[in-house]
């Protein structure tokens, strides 16, 4: 996102009068977006900040408690266990998914494939599948009852480890998320690769660079911006996880606790636990944690760029 160059209009209007008129016109276009944005983004943030300073009790009603909720969040083992789980997930899943997506994009871009456009669309297609449907599908496939895993066990007389057992369920979720988004990320990388000037490859080749060297020295640096953006989106998306675990919960109630991810925990707190003030606090803390991670990714990406 740092790579965004704010685009200024090429030519300035000549006179001051017309400039202020144009200024108002700018707000006519941006205003509607910002108004709704304020309602659904800024107001809820402000509201949860407000909520986080209060406590609502059956006896005694609402009372101002200062930073008590935050203190509780920082000492909350369930919350930090959930954060740790999500971090573990991010550290493994995001590099695997983006690495594979990059390899596929490079393969498509290399021009060495037969049936390139088929592969491009085939790998992308899962993105069009809603997460709920994807999770239900994979949930069935994982099933030892009538799923593929069960079929394979039966056919080969083996017993594969249950993908929905507590020790494997995080990896199984990682697989679902990877399946859903690998094509989307591949396409972002591929689109970025396509606009790298071909003359750069030729120049490198004349200098005696082999294909692998062209990839590491020319192609990957040229799409660093796209890599950083995709990493940030994947990190933010991964840390918000709730759909996949909450849908798999009915299939794997023992493996997925009500505080499996921070979001699932907030959801449980506010709807089953009716602790909305504390839920708002946890949301805020998680938002800050996510932003710190996203910011760190961005800094790292920029430093390499320099």
């Amino acid at each position: 996102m740092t790579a965004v160059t704010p685009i200024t209009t090429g030519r300035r209007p000549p006179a001051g009068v017309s400039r202020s008129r144009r200024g108002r016109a700018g707000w006519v276009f941006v205003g509607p977006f910002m108004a709704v944005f304020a309602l659904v983004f800024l107001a809820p943030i402000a509201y949860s900040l407000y909520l986080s300073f209060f406590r609502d009790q059956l006896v005694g009603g609402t009372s101002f408690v200062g930073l008590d909720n935050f203190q509780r969040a920082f000492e909350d083992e369930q919350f930090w266990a959930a954060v740790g789980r999500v971090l573990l997930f991010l550290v493994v899943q995001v590099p695997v998914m983006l690495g594979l997506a990059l390899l596929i994009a490079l393969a498509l871009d290399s021009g060495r494939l037969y049936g390139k456009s088929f592969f491009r669309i085939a790998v992308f297609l899962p993105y069009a599948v809603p997460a709920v449907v994807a999770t239900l599908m994979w949930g069935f496939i994982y099933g030892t009852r009538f799923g593929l895993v069960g079929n394979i066990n039966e056919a080969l007389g083996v017993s594969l480890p249950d993908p929905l057992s507590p020790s494997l369920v995080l990896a199984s979720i990682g697989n679902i998320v990877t399946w859903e988004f690998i094509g989307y990320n591949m396409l972002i990388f591929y689109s970025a690769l396509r606009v790298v000037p071909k003359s750069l490859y030729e120049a490198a080749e004349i200098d005696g660079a082999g294909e692998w060297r062209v990839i590491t020295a020319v192609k990957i640096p040229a799409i660093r911006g796209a890599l950083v953006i995709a990493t940030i989106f994947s990190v933010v998306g991964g840390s918000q996880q709730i759909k996949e675990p909450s849908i798999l919960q009915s299939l794997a109630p023992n493996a997925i606790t009500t505080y499996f991810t921070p979001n699932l925990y907030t959801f449980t707190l506010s709807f089953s636990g009716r602790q909305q003030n504390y839920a708002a606090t946890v949301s805020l803390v998680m938002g800050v944690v996510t932003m710190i991670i996203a910011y760190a990714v961005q800094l790292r990406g920029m430093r390499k760029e320099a």
Partner: protein
Amino acid sequence: MSAPSFTADQTSRRSTHRAPAPRRAARRKHSVARPRRSTVLTLLMGLTAVYALMPLAWLVINATKTQKSLLDSFGLWFSGEFALWDNISQTLTYDDGIFVRWFLNTLLYVVVGAGGATFLAVLGGYGLAKFDFAGKRAVFATVIGAVAVPATALAVPTFLMFSKMGLTNTPWAVIIPSLISPFGLYLMWVFAAEAIPTELLEAARVDGSGELRTFFQVALPLLTPGIVTVLLFTMVQTWNNYFLPVIMIKNPDWYPLTLGLNAWNQQASTAGGQPVFNLVITGSLLTIVPLIAAFLLLQRYWQSGLAAGSVKG
């Protein structure tokens, strides 16, 4: 960085976009710019295609099975009687045709939510790309900052707010939050900056055209590929919407498809509930067909639109 012009006809010529380079390199037989096709690499890619398509194949195959043969046949091959049509009609009529109702709800959320989100993003992106105005930097900073805020973390406070406003359990509770797509705004901004020559706008102004008229008559046609892209991606998002409706909607009559399917699945898993796995599977298939069709039919538009986004990205 070379700035390609993103017009529909450019993408239709995609297959030949490498034409100039190979011609220059034609003296050599194979090079980075014109490589030899590789069977090994194609086979490796075949594996990824199998990974991507296998679950979809599983879904199609199992939508043709009855509830009974679903449980006792091999998942990746057909078995028993061909029950696809039975399953479809059962899905559509089960529980007084609630699936059709969910489908119409989803359509409503998608048309109003994704359509509205695209409209706001197009207007805003155009305004950011082509006008200088007070507060532009602040707009940029706020929206980019908001992308990093976990949207689902907003869901709980939004619910509390909306319940005070009496909006929960109504379609508005799902529609209003889907009207904002920061990614759509960003994409339209980049796209409008590339696709609309400022000179063209100046010319229209000189001719006395008002700003809104200039937008609709001059700018909008040039933005078409970007608009289709944003529309498709916001559509996917709204179609995909799950967490927000889970929180906002308690009445099954206002469920979107995703919630309905999950409700059927849970019904099947609870003791005493009627197992309707065949309906969950057939319903899932019916849910993804429209989206996959849209992506396949509109390929040339969204691919060029995404390309525009990644240039600046």
